């Protein structure tokens, strides 16, 4: 199963940890390889070559996430509500160290890496303290996630987006 399909299947609506939030699940409505960032683009995966990666200064890691605070005009255009006076994020860009990713030992590791990196776009930070999507291989005891687990869904619902109306 691809990273996208794994994210879809592990964030389906009705999951108990969502406690009624997002009844239709976290739907990834469109995946494109166009190189074009559109108004409804939430996550951009930039596959960088070694020169680009080196110039970006992101070290030896496999990925690096950049979120941008959305211009107010973007929220006004779509009528997105402001929460706490803020408009939100648009988009989240993930810089990917392509040569490192291609050097991973298996498709599974590559898939899990993408699942981990896209979790940053949802607001998750790197951590190795518990077995979760935040795991970043920062230590030998820390392994990349194979998908969202209950703890991740609970974290999203209870701590990352507690103020959202979930409509």
């Amino acid at each position: 199963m691809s990273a996208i399909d794994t994210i879809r299947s592990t964030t389906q609506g009705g999951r108990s940890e969502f406690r009624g939030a997002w009844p239709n699940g976290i739907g990834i409505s469109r995946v494109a390889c166009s190189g074009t960032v559109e108004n409804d683009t939430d996550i951009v995966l930039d596959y960088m070559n070694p020169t680009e990666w080196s110039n970006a200064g992101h070290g030896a890691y496999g990925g690096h996430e950049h979120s941008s605070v959305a211009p107010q005009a973007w929220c006004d255009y779509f009528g997105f509500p402001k929460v706490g006076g803020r408009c939100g994020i648009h988009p989240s860009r993930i810089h990917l160290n392509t040569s490192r990713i291609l050097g991973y030992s298996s498709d599974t590791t590559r898939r899990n890496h993408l699942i981990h990196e896209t979790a940053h776009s949802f607001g998750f930070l790197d951590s190795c303290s518990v077995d979760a999507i935040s795991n970043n291989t920062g230590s030998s005891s820390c392994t990349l996630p194979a998908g969202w687990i209950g703890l991740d869904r609970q974290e999203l619902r209870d701590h990352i987006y507690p103020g959202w109306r979930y409509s």
Partner: protein
Amino acid sequence: MTREASLCSHRLRTILSIAAVMGAMLGVTVVANATPDPITAPQSDRPVKNCDAFKQRNDASESQELFDGATGKLVITTEDSIFVLDEASTPCKDNPLTKRRLEHARRIEDENVAALCKSFRQAIAEKRTQEKGRPVNLAAAEKYVAETCN
């Protein structure tokens, strides 16, 4: 190779569009803890530091970044600290590590602005009233293009 990686050779981008509700949901990331500044990530109790404290060790640490193009503030969350950098701050300009991070963030922001300008111009040209099934406020796009786009 995963499906995603095989689809996109380097320099191309995979675009993930999460359902509209998710777009709005992502929008509350920075306010989830209801603080006036997006400097404290929701699950983080890491200390907040400034440019003076940003050392080589921090630069080399795995991190996530949040940039506000309107204010020039960049929040870098590392595994043990949160750094708030400011384009206008002299200490941030004087520290080559923070200067580089801010310049990189600004370049990304410029890409984002260019993409939004292109999208809004197209919407204006088409006199769009809806996009992705949602009604849109074209006046907001016109104002942004007039004030921001070259």
